[in-house]
């Protein structure tokens, strides 16, 4: 199909269309919105993207977003190093921190297992989690992946890897409605779920 737009416009639409949740129509709408903006506004947006990309990186230990080598949570030595809460994305940490219930550290997998999309253990930060156990003297791992099919599969897979290492492996309680994302849970529900965590039995 021959594009109806000049090459620079088509490239912009294509790049926008690669962003999560943006379909071809939205990409087109955003592209034309950007083209109508004053040059200074566009420059500010481009700068913000580049600046964030340059300054923000992943914590060397837990893969949370960080400005330095370690994220603020890993850098805080008042946090309990023996308990680690495993989450899919950094934004889940924000939700869990709001509950005020958790004083340990985190580990961000940067996704969840999804075989049909080709996302398996190698595509996630699972090996990195396993190497932390001994190095940091971790005695309990709380699996806080999303309460949906991908998250449950990831939690069960992790439990199978972690249990032979002789630690306590727990899953946040089922008070969370299945199907929803952790980031949308209110802090009361999430706090209760964290408190009512139970050992995982590898069925």
């Amino acid at each position, binding site marked *: 199909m021959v594009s109806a737009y000049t090459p620079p416009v088509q490239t912009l639409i294509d790049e926008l269309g690669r962003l999560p*949740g943006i379909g071809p129509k939205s990409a087109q709408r955003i592209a034309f919105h950007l083209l109508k903006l004053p040059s200074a506004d566009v420059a500010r947006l481009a700068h913000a993207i580049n600046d964030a990309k340059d300054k923000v990186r992943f914590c060397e230990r837990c893969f949370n977003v960080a400005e330095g080598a370690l994220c603020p949570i890993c850098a805080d030595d008042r946090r309990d190093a023996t308990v680690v809460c495993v989450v899919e994305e950094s934004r889940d940490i924000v939700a869990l921190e709001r509950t005020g219930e958790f004083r340990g550290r985190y580990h961000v997998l940067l996704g969840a297992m999804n075989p*049909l999309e080709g996302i398996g*253990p190698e595509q996630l930060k699972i090996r990195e989690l396993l190497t932390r156990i001994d190095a940091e003297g971790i005695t309990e791992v709380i699996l806080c992946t999303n309460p949906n099919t991908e998250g449950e*599969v990831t939690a069960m897979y992790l439990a199978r890897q972690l249990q032979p290492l002789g630690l306590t492996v727990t899953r946040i309680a089922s008070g969370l409605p299945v*199907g929803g994302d952790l980031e*949308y849970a209110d802090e009361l529900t999430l706090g209760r779920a964290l408190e009512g965590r139970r050992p995982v039995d590898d069925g």
Partner: protein
Amino acid sequence: MSELYRDSGVVLRTYKLREADRIVVLLTAANGKVRAVAKGVRKTRSKFGARLEPMSHVRVLLVRGRELDIVSQAESVEPLSPMLSSLDRASQGLAVLEAAEQLSLEREPNPDLYRMVVGAMRAIAERPAPLTVAGFYWKLLASEGMRPELDMCVRCGGTEPEVAFVAFDLGEGGVLCRSCRSGHPMSAEALEAVRDILGGRLAKALAMEESAVTHEVSLLATHALEYHVERRMRTVAMFE
């Protein structure tokens, strides 16, 4: 313009869309593979709850759209929780979904495929036997018109007991005798198990304990399916 229709389906996969929505891909009983938007499904108070997760079996009310349909209502036919009660069940369920996704076509009714997927999911929920997925794959191939030849050498036409079958060739679609052998080696026990699966004795195959034979039959089933769809099956390999 906004045509409503009802159907039953198994959720094959989902994609995130915008803030809190998902695209749900369903294998339906009467409409083949259907792609539909479920609004607000990622919110924890969504009216859809866990009913539109991969492996969910639902009755749905859909609004027909130009590219994507919209899920208006969804009620559970079978609970999802047994499928998520163990890693074996979940990984077997996903292996079934992956094959179904490969073999289903959008808006092309394939009630046999739907029935087979529902049957396999029920069997897995009850007991994830070592040969459940292989049994499903072999039966799937047979229903796609790729029933393998198991009783006659595909090259020389020899039959038992004059010749013994020692190999299975994916390209030729059947067993071979010692002098004609090519493709994958096949033990007599594995041949027996595939004959059980395709000969109306599935229960016997599903009663087998995990062993070198069940591994052989599973591997061959995966290779045969991959040969047919010309694509790697990722789920089985991921949980080995």
